[in-house]
C-alpha cells in the first residue's frame, strides 16, 4: 500500500491539501495521478495568513507544489481492504483458468454447444 494508492482511495472524499507556499486547499478529490497532480471540486482556498478565503467549483493542483495532504482517519483501513480485495480477485482469476478456457472454447467450431448465427444458415 503506497502513499499514492492511499490518495487514490480518497477519491470522492474531502481532503485538505497544503501547498509549499502555505496556501491551504479544502475540497473533494476528483482524481489524482502518479505525479500527485490533483483535481478537486467544491474548493475553499485559504491563503497563507489564514485570513482570506476563496471558493472555486473546480480546482487543479500541480503535484510539485504540494507539501502535504490531510485525509480522513479511517482511510488507511479502507485502503488495506481495497488492496486485499484486489489481491483476492487476482488469485481467483488465476485459479479459475480452466473455467475461462471452457468459456473461450464454447463458441469454437467443433464444440457441440456452438449455435452461432452463420452456422444455422449453412
Amino acid at each position: 500500500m503506497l502513499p499514492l494508492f492511499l490518495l487514490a482511495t480518497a477519491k470522492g472524499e474531502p481532503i485538505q491539501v497544503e501547498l509549499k507556499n502555505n496556501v491551504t486547499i479544502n475540497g473533494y478529490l476528483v482524481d489524482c495521478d502518479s505525479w500527485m497532480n490533483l483535481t478537486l471540486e467544491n474548493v475553499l482556498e485559504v491563503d497563507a495568513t489564514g485570513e482570506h478565503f476563496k471558493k472555486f467549483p473546480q480546482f487543479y493542483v500541480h503535484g510539485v507544489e504540494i507539501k502535504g495532504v490531510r485525509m480522513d482517519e479511517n482511510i488507511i483501513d479502507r485502503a488495506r481492504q481495497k488492496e486485499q480485495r484486489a489481491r483476492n480477485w487476482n488469485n481467483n482469476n488465476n485459479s479459475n483458468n480452466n473455467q475461462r478456457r471452457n468459456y473461450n472454447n464454447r463458441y469454437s467450431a467443433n464444440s457441440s454447444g456452438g449455435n452461432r448465427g452463420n452456422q444455422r444458415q449453412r
Partner: protein
Amino acid sequence: MTQNQNRSQTAGLSDVFQNDSEKDLYLESYMYTTAAALVGSIDKIVTVTLREGRVFIGILRTFDQFANLVLQDTVERIYIGDDKYAEAPQGVFLIRGENVSLVGEIDLDQQDKDLEKRSQIPFPEAQRIRKELVAAKQAKTTKERELMLSKGFEPQS
C-alpha cells in the same frame, strides 16, 4: 568463502564499535540505503522534520521511493526554548517527499522525559511566538549582513 568473509567483517565490526547502538548506526548494517532504509521504522512512531523546520510526529504507515510518507495519528509539535511546547492534531497526513529533511524513530521514554520538563501552551500562541523568533533572527542576520558589507566583507550565503 563469502560467508567466511562476512563473518570476519562482522567480527571486525564488533571490535571497532563499543556497543550495539553504535553498531546500529553503521551504514553497512542496513539492508537498504536511501528511502528503503525506512522499512525498519514502519508501524513505529517517527518524527519528521520538514525543510521549513516544522516537526510532525506520528505512526509511519507507508512510504515510497520518493520518501513520500503517510503518518497516522499525527501531531504537529512546536518546541519553544527549553520550557514550552505546543501540539496540534493532524490525523492522517501524507507528506510529499521533497519537503522532508529528516525522519527518525522516537524513543518514547526519552520523549516523555523531555516533555515532562516543558509546559504545554496553546498551538496558535506557539505559532505566533515562533513567527516572532524567526522574524527576529532574520532581522539580526540582515543587520549583520549590512554591517559586513559596509566594512567591505562579502558575507557567506
